[in-house]
């Protein structure tokens, strides 16, 4: 390279400047990296290790092998119920995505006031989830809840329904609240996807006389695939992280009807102080999450939720 032709002092200067720059780069990276090492990487490894140990507060831990996993799979009915509920809770994703897709198509049209509609529909997303839980508890209230009141006024039911206290209705009721909160977010993601579809594709199709329904299935849906799967992955993440809503609305009850893996981990760890067993449940939860997220990513063509990485 040209550098070889330079006189020696100049070369040294460049080398020294490059060295200084590298020091600066690593200094700038260090604070953020320290946080991720401390609160992501280290906990993940620690958690894995903990799941193979007998652990009690203030005592040295002992090796337990697969004891906790064995107990979980063979004897722990609550674990299985929480696992099953986590899968059911994932139904939030497809339902909310369908609704969000319809809404995105509507607010993408050149109608008046579409920005107002967008804001209103998105408004529930940034809310404090605990407050959302309080609001929906009140809406579902047996005596004076708005939902029971409307259903009774319409003559759809005779007796008020105890939505959150009944085994069969508790989980679906929480899912409705979850959809209410997340649908606006999905709508915005899908809208961004819709707007990135080049309009000349539709123009060409219209010139060729392609019917609108065919345009939707042949142009819109295929090009929207990455956005749709991004929503799907976010929905999966939500089913593993919806702690706040469950905790506030039902506390996992009645019985364990709305127990998710994440609420179960919390109860085992911080209610019963069984960190070791909770760590094992966490590992199952995390592996499941990772598997599903990677699957979703792969189905989306490998780039859902990816940030372009240019070097």
């Amino acid at each position: 390279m040209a550098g070889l032709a330079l006189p020696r002092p100049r070369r040294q200067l460049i080398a020294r400047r490059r060295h200084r720059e590298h020091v600066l780069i690593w200094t700038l990276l260090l604070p953020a990296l320290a946080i991720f090492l401390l609160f992501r990487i280290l906990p993940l490894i620690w958690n894995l290790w903990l799941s193979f140990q007998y652990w009690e507060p203030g005592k040295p831990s002992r090796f337990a092998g697969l004891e906790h996993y064995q107990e979980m799979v063979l004897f722990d009915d609550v674990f299985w119920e929480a696992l099953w509920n986590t899968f059911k809770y994932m139904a939030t994703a497809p339902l909310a995505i369908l609704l969000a897709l319809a809404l995105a198509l509507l607010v993408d049209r050149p109608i008046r006031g579409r920005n107002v509609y967008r804001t209103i529909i998105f408004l529930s997303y940034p809310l404090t989830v605990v407050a959302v839980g309080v609001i929906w508890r009140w809406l579902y209230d047996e005596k004076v809840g708005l939902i029971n009141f409307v259903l009774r006024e319409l003559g759809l039911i005779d007796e008020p329904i105890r939505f959150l206290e009944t085994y069969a209705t508790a989980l679906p009721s929480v899912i409705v609240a979850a959809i209410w909160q997340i649908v606006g977010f999905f709508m915005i993601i899908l809208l961004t996807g819709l707007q990135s579809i080049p309009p000349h594709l539709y123009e060409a199709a219209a010139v060729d006389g392609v019917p609108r329904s065919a345009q939707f299935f042949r142009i819109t849906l295929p090009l929207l695939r990455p956005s749709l799967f991004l929503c799907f992955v976010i929905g999966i993440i939500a089913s593993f992280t919806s702690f706040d809503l469950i905790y506030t609305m039902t506390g996992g009850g009645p019985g364990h009807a709305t127990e998710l893996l994440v609420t179960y981990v919390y109860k085992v760890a911080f209610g019963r102080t069984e960190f070791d067993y909770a760590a094992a449940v966490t590992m199952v939860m995390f592996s499941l999450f990772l598997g599903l997220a990677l699957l979703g990513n792969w189905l989306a063509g490998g780039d859902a939720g990816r940030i372009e990485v240019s070097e």
Partner: protein
Amino acid sequence: MNRRRSAFPVHLALAAVSLVMLVPFYWVVKTSITGENIFAYPPSLLPVEPHLFYYVDAWYTIPFPRYLFNSVVVAAMVILANLVFNAAAGYALTKSFPGKRWIILLLLACMMIPFHATIIPAYLVTGRLGLLNTHLGLALPAFSHIICIFVFKANFDAIPASLVQAARIDGVPESRILLKVILPLAKPAVATNLILSFIWSWNDFLWPLIITRDQAMQTLPLGLSAFLAQFEDATGALYAFCVMVLAPGLLVFLLAQKEFIRGLTSGARKG
């Protein structure tokens, strides 16, 4: 797309959905200012004898100012740290250096680790650091958000290199270039960082629930949850409290909607 069709059915559908989205807000505000017994049946659709008594009640019967103070302190720490850490890391990632590929891979991998999957060791780590039940302990895990680092990186990448080059030829030191040339051009990323880290910190619940032990350190969502646990839904003050928790977040969101949405969809947008 198709302007010839009547917009009326579209408006009708959107208005219906908007109603469903807004009714819960209305219902909680209505309850919080209802003067009568909130358990009267049938519930009135309009507030009866509206007053603000429940708000006064909530302010004084629970340590609302204390919760508010904690929430504000933690949010301020999180916002400040995010701005500094993410801007620094985002800037470093615009440079080429050995090991950069691995750092980016590491960050992307970390994005796949939900905080919920690390709560137990995160609690133990915070305990070892002696930060349980402190403001710093509440804020520390949220000191940097990976998505925000990439928001900064994208913003820095969009700044014309010639501008930085010119400053460098003039002999301006790197650190001053960063502060005086690049940061002022990164206002959109700063805004996005500010909004996202504020909202996430403001709404955070699980982490404060785990690491705070006494009421003096609790944040607003935690206070709301504790209030609910204590009184069930027996009093209108709960809903006044609820409105007061929601108001700041909603206000910030309405003021900075564009930045908020840009941050959230930065992962969705391609190219």
